[in-house]
């Protein structure tokens, strides 16, 4: 099917939420990587999912609005996903790269509304690394409606992602989850935070299609 798009209100901005496949039951929500946008159609690797398949364009990406003067943080973009949760209720998340990082954070912050998260390869998985990167401060011209927003690319490729910070969110999920393995790592490229998550005793590793199938 051709994807359909609705716009969610997020403060003064609009977020584009695409329906890639209609269906009954809990949706699978796809979160794209840094600088990417949602796919135009359902990816083959979601074929095991019988329910609806949704995809969100993060703020400053795809068909979502661009804010004035950046200010992007992964924690701030959790509210993008939270807007979907408020509208659609519980989902299972598959995050690519940067979307995997935000997926983990929001799964830890909204444990009753995220029924499993799959962490997969994609753009922006590393961020700024485990420690703050070399200071680099620069002012960019006002970008208007340029997408992906240059400030998103700048700020979300430099945010520190310490492994112990990631493990806090793993604990939040594991302490609350009613399913046995709520976090599945399918990514092959693993920055330090993701290696730490994958090594946690409560986290399992599976190929992407099997990971999705584990939440059906």
């Amino acid at each position, binding site marked *: 099917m051709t994807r359909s798009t609705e716009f969610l*209100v997020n*403060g*003064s*901005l609009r977020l584009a939420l695409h329906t890639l496949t209609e269906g009954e039951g809990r949706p699978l929500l796809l979160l794209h990587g840094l600088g990417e946008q949602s796919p135009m159609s359902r990816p083959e690797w979601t074929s095991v999912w019988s329910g609806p398949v949704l995809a969100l364009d993060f*703020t400053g990406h795809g068909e979502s609005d661009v*804010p*004035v*003067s*950046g*200010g*992007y*943080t*992964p*924690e*701030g973009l*959790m*509210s993008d996903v*939270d*807007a979907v949760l*408020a509208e659609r209720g519980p989902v299972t998340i598959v995050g690519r790269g940067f979307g995997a990082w935000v997926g983990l954070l929001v799964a*830890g*912050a*909204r444990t009753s509304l995220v029924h499993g998260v799959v962490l997969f390869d994609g753009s922006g998985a590393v961020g700024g690394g485990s*420690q*703050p990167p*070399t*200071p*680099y*401060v*620069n*002012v*960019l*011209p*006002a*970008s208007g409606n340029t997408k992906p927003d240059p*400030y998103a690319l700048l*700020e979300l490729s*430099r*945010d*520190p*992602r*310490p492994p112990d*910070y990631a493990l*806090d969110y793993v*604990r*939040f999920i594991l302490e609350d989850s009613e399913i046995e393995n709520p976090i599945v790592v399918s990514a092959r490229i693993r920055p330090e935070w993701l290696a730490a998550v994958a090594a946690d005793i409560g986290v399992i590793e599976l190929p992407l299609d099997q990971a999705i199938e584990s939440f059906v």
Partner: protein
Amino acid sequence: MPSTDQTREFLGAKAPDRTGSIDSSGLRLALNEWGDPDAPVLAMVHGGFDFSRTFDVFAPMIAEAGWRVVAWDARGHGDSDHAHMYGWSADVRDHLAAIQSISSEPIVLLGHSKGGGQLLDLLDGRPSLAKAFVNLDGLPSQFSSPDVNDRERRRMRRADLASGLDRRRRRNELSRRPDTIEGLAERRQPMNPRLSREWLEYLVTVGARHDDEGWRWKIDPVLHLGGFGPWRPGWSLDHLAALEMPFLGVLSGVQDDPMGWKSRHGDIEPYLPPGGRLEYYDDIGHFLHIEQSRFIADLVLEFLEPLR
């Protein structure tokens, strides 16, 4: 009995001589200035939940000594635009935009609390912006972090996360609660327990907006204390050690003040840049420049004298 008078005066407080604005990639930041426009520039950066008019006593003291004092409101604070997104690095970038709009030459920078911490980040990456740096109780240290176990720390982080997301869900419905001048001052007092009620009432009249329902702080209601993500206080010490310009740090030693990082002299001293100077006062609270404005202004002016 609350007063119906909508103005307040405070001894030594002086409204800015000039006002204006700065553009930070399309976001408007409000600017205030005191003193001779042709004098050497000293820029002041306020702390979290403050605004540039909190310098209304301190800035004129520096200006009277021959400086052009410039201060701006952070995004979402004071008279600056509210933003869709907030973050430490966005604030740091706004400071760069402000400084570059004020002068193409190195200037003296002074930051209080969070503003001082953010200038540490900025000056590590952009040392040529400053010919000297004064930091007023804005030196975070990992040694002074609250003594809480991992479980309690996670519980606090989780509660902060949930409340932050809830606020963002409701951001279009949020507004600051209206009150009288006296009521707003009373509500601010727990954050500023060592400052006089007279000062706090003055602050209301320059930092809040009056409408049919009363006075409301101008700060964006979506903002709340905390929310630094994975940020660690100790990361700031790396920036401090890297500085190369003349440096004066001033620490408050009052440990029961609810604001500030509570860093002690021994926490910071090993990280001072070469020639850096650190003063520690265990009888002045976190808002040193307001509580002891004359004393702190004289200290700053004495430090800056060789740079004139």
